[in-house]
Structure formats: structure tokens, C-alpha cells
């Protein structure tokens, strides 16, 4: 199976090849360098006109992409480090994501903003963060994060071609070199993949979701051990750290006979709750794992919605996340701040 890096790169290659409207923009993305994390490698050699290296102007680039999208192109922007999405907040929240609704559905802004998040590379406090939580819950914006349990390239292609609205596409520096799981390796698991049900995005007053029913494409995977006793704990995670949860689940099952069900959405916002809720209804317990800092991360929304839905049937809920601190450069400190497999295993044991 290919690596995530390969899959994403191939998706961009194909996007450029198959549609003239696709334009790729970002800092230092030209060959031979091919971008800081090489996701754009080979693109400018093949499509020199439509791969644009930019000045160091994160806000400006996103604005330019939004303008291009308003006029019929399909721009894909790379923000070199996810830490810098702070710089694009206004262009995303007060411009790109707002236009469609504010302009009475008269326009569309189909941009995709890709960016790598995450630590454990020793890059220190401004190059290691997991910042997507600040963009979850932005009206009009879809936030996606691929993992190795479904096809990242497919997800990116669909974000480019099947989504009329702005997408923030969250990658992870360590995820790039992971290989996508193949069915053999997963054969000890029951594996379901589903996209949000057509009626998943209901519009209900003050419970708040208004959806374009036509374009739910981001899959959620559900895994539980084959021929095992029924799971007693649901573990929800996304992106790179899904792999940690997977390792923890194996360990919990084989070492401690704690059986879990894993739920990995690729759509973080609007929060795809279908599988998490149905699993937690069965297990009664929900552990959410994320790499971002603890407070008001994705896990907060997931647990809140679960508590709202299940009431006292939610027996136990817990988040595993980074400490509410900047990410230090020093290895031992960084390891202490970030969540690890051990923390998942310990928390799960305590919860059941």
C-alpha cells in the first residue's frame, strides 16, 4: 500500500491533469524542492503554469485563492506549517467561508487549504502545533483530516472536485510516511466505512446544522475486533493519532482483555457524529483522542454532542489530548506535553 504522502501527491497530480481549473499555490512548492514536506513534488515540473510558488503571505494567498475560486477556478493552497493558519483566520472566517451564505447563496468559493500539523519533530513552539480546533465550528467551512484507514488521496480529490465550499484539509507531518492500511492487515477487525447519512445534517433550530445534503463525501471508519466479546468502550480519533488509538486498542484487547470499538471520522467540522453516537450507544463509554491542546478541541464537541444525545446512558467520557501548553522543542518535554499510546491505554483501563 502507498504512503499517505504518495496518495496525496498523486491526488494533486491527477487533479491537475484532469481539470484545467485546478491551480496549486503555496510557499516553496516548486520543483526540484517540491514543498517543505514534498506533497507538491513533481507538480510544477508537470504543470508549470498551474503550480504557483508564492511570497510568504499566508493571508494574501488564501484571499487570492478565494478570488480565483469565485471566478471559476479550483485553487488548492498549501500553508507550509499548520501553525500559521492563525494568519489566515480572517480570510477564511470573515471572507471565504462567509461569502456563500452572506451573498444569499449566489456565489460559491471552492477552495481547498491543505496544511500539515503536529509535533514530535522537535520543531518547537511555532512549528509543531495542532491548530485545527480553532477552525472547527466555523459556519460555511468544512474541516477534513485524512487517516490511514481510508484513502487520503480520494478524500483530497473529492474535496477539490465534489465540494463547492471552502475546505480546510489537515495533514500531519508524521502521517505522511505512514502507509495506508490494507485489508489484509486489518483482517482481524470488522471494518465499516460510511459517509454521513443523507439526513445527518439536519437543520434544527438552535441545535444548529444546515447542510448541503448533496455532498457528504468524507468517510468515517469503524473498527472492532472480529470474533471478540462486545466492545465496552468507544475510542474516537482522527488523523495521525488514529494510529495510536489502533495500537492502543490492540494492546488493550490482547494484554488487558478490554475490547474497544474505534471510530475514525475524516470530517471534523461539521462534526460527523453518526458513527460515534451509534457506537457509544452500544458501549456507553467514550474516549476521544486528539493531538491538539486539551481545552475546546474537537473532543469537546464530540463529548458534548454525545452527552446531549445519550444523557445518563453515557456512563463515562474522557479526552486524551495535549497539555494546554505550547509545544516545547526539547524531546522529553515535547513527549510529556503530547498524548501518547500509553495515555490511551491507561485512560481506557480506568474507564471500564
Amino acid at each position: 500500500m502507498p504512503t499517505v504522502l504518495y496518495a496525496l501527491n498523486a491526488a494533486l497530480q491527477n487533479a491537475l491533469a484532469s481539470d484545467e481549473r485546478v491551480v496549486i499555490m503555496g510557499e516553496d512548492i516548486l520543483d526540484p524542492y517540491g514543498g517543505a514536506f514534498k506533497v507538491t513534488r513533481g507538480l510544477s515540473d508537470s504543470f508549470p503554469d498551474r503550480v504557483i510558488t508564492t511570497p510568504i503571505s499566508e493571508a494574501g494567498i488564501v484571499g487570492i485563492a478565494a478570488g480565483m475560486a469565485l471566478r471559476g477556478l479550483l485553487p488548492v493552497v498549501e500553508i507550509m506549517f499548520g501553525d500559521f493558519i492563525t494568519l489566515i483566520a480572517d480570510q477564511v472566517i470573515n471572507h471565504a467561508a462567509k461569502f456563500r451564505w452572506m451573498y444569499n447563496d449566489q456565489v460559491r468559493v471552492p477552495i481547498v487549504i491543505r496544511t500539515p500539523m503536529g509535533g514530535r519533530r522537535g520543531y518547537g513552539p511555532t512549528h509543531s502545533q495542532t491548530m485545527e480546533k480553532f477552525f472547527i465550528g466555523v459556519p460555511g467551512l468544512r474541516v477534513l483530516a485524512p487517516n490511514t484507514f481510508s484513502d487520503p488521496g480520494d478524500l483530497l480529490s473529492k474535496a477539490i472536485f465534489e465540494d463547492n465550499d471552502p475546505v480546510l484539509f489537515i495533514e500531519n507531518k508524521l502521517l505522511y510516511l505512514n502507509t495506508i492500511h490494507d485489508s489484509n492487515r486489518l483482517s482481524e477487525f470488522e471494518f465499516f466505512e460510511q459517509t454521513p447519512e443523507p439526513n445527518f445534517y439536519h437543520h434544527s433550530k438552535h441545535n444548529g446544522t444546515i447542510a448541503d445534503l448533496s455532498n457528504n463525501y468524507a468517510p468515517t471508519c469503524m473498527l472492532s475486533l472480529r470474533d471478540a466479546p462486545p466492545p465496552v468502550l468507544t475510542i474516537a480519533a482522527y488523523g495521525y493519532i488514529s494510529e495510536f488509538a489502533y495500537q492502543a486498542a490492540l494492546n488493550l484487547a490482547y494484554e488487558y482483555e478490554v475490547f474497544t470499538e474505534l471510530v475514525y471520522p475524516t470530517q471534523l467540522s461539521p462534526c460527523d457524529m453518526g458513527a460515534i453516537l451509534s457506537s457509544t450507544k452500544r458501549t456507553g463509554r467514550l474516549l476521544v483522542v486528539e493531538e491538539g491542546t486539551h481545552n475546546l478541541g474537537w473532543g469537546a464537541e464530540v463529548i458534548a454532542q454525545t452527552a446531549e444525545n445519550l444523557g445518563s446512558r453515557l456512563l463515562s467520557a474522557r479526552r486524551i489530548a495535549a497539555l494546554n501548553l505550547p509545544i516545547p522543542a526539547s524531546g522529553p518535554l515535547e513527549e510529556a506535553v503530547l498524548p501518547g499510546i500509553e495515555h490511551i491505554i491507561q485512560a481506557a483501563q480506568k474507564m471500564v
Partner: protein
Amino acid sequence: MLYFTAMSDDNTLYEDLLRIRRFEEAVLDNFPKGVFFGTTHTYLGQEANAVGVLDDIHSGDIVFSNHRGHGHFLAYGGDIRSLFAELMGKTTGVCGGRGGSQHLQWQNFYSNGVQGGIIPIATGMALAEKRKYSDAIVIAFMGDGTLGEGVVYEALNMASLWQAPILFVLENNRIAQTTPIEMAVAGDISARFKAFNIMVRELDSSDVKEILPVAAELIAEVRSLKSPRTLILNTYRFGPHSKGDDIRDKHEIDQLRVERDPILIHAHRLDSNHKEAIELKVEKYIQEAFNQALADPLPDASKALTGSINHQ
């Protein structure tokens, strides 16, 4: 270089100017009656800019406007009734009442209320049109105060690097809300554009007939050379920033209303019969549009919201 432009005749220009003037007056007059939502930023005194710049644009050309956008919208050809209706939050409004005064979208006209943020977007639009080999260009309006926003310079840099077919129109009324230009803008405005290798023309005029040919020439350059240009228009705001928030010397404004009124300046060119006929016509239009808009329905909230297909 001289470009041939199909310049509107004096009567048409007068009507265009007056339409904006009377619209804005009607807005300010009627605000206290509670018929409008939110607030407004009127274009009183600056009418010659929008009319002069937009007189000669092509149908595919794009206009990106800002908070002070009614004049731009009307000069672009926007409908009076639907603008009134937008301010009144009616279903017939430009954006069905969702946007309000600062957030308009119709045909190739757009506006937004965040200072500066539209400049990269307008630049991106221009680059898209160039990539599509279309003939269209973009005209982006901004005020002197908006030069405070950093993203403007990010856009100027890329507009120049990539030669975007865009005309930046800087309406310098020497004030931002209540802040005089001396307290907000250091150095020289035209130098700020030139530093990015963007050619600048500057005018100190409230005469639509002076503004129009210069704008037309720049627009033709932008279109033919696929290259950005800047037009700095030194101008005066006659009204308050929004409503009742003018702290400037009244006497000074009165003086400007005599010397620099685009309507008065241009009116001299018309014979009095035409002039009166136009005035009556505009008066009637505005009144009718206002009344129509007033009679238009407010949105039924539940319907309006479920009709949307925004994905969140």
C-alpha cells in the same frame, strides 16, 4: 497615450451622480424612522469617483467594493429598489436581506465590510480572469484608512509579481471614521503603490469629467497590458462616517460642499431644462423605489433559513 472611450454624455453623467446623491440622502433622512437595519456609510461628496471610474467598464468587468459601497453599486448599474430593500432587510434586497449595507453581491459586483480583506480577493479574481483569457478586469475600491491593513500590501506585492489585471482605486477623503489621515498614514500614499512597482495616477478633483478619462485610460491599460494600476482620487466626504458621528469642523465641510460638490460642478454643464427634467426623474425614481422597497416583504425567517444549503 490617448484612448478612445465611449464616454457617457453630460446628461447621463448628471443622472448617475444625482441618483447616488438622492439615494444617500433618502437613506440618511429615513434612518431615524426605523425603516433600515444596522447602520450605513454614505457616499455623499464622493459620487464623481464611482461614476467616473465605472462609466466605461465592460459587462464582464468585476467591481469589489467596501463599506462605503452604495455609490459603487449604483454606478455599477445596481438597482435602487433592491439596494433600499437590502438595507431594509427585505426579501427583494440585493442579498435577500442577509448582507445589509456592507455586504452586497449582484452580477459581477461584490462588497464586504472588513477593511482591506477584499484586496487579495479582488486580486485573485483578476488573476483568474487573466488565466481564463477573458477580457475582464477588476476594479477594487478602498479608502485611505484601509492602507493600515497589512494584507493590502501582501496583495499589492502579488498583483505586481503576477501582473494581475486590476485597477486599485484609492478614494482618499483624508479621514477614516474620525481619524484624520495625518494620524493614520505615514509617508506618501502613491509611493506605497510604486514601491511594489505599480504605476499610479493621482487626481485631486470632484469633477466627473476629469476623473472619467483618466480612469478610462487606466482601465484600458489594465485590460490591454494585463497589469495592475492604481488611481488615487483625492476626494471629500460630505456626510458623517456613518450616522451622526461627524466631529469635523462644520464650517470646513460647508466650504467643501460649495467648492467640491460633484453635482454642482457637473450641473453647470447642463442646460436648465435637461437638468430639471433629470432632477424630477431621479426624484421620482428614488421615491418610487423607496416606497416599493418599503412595501416589499420581510423574510419569513423559518423559510429563509431552511432554504439555505450552506453545509453547516
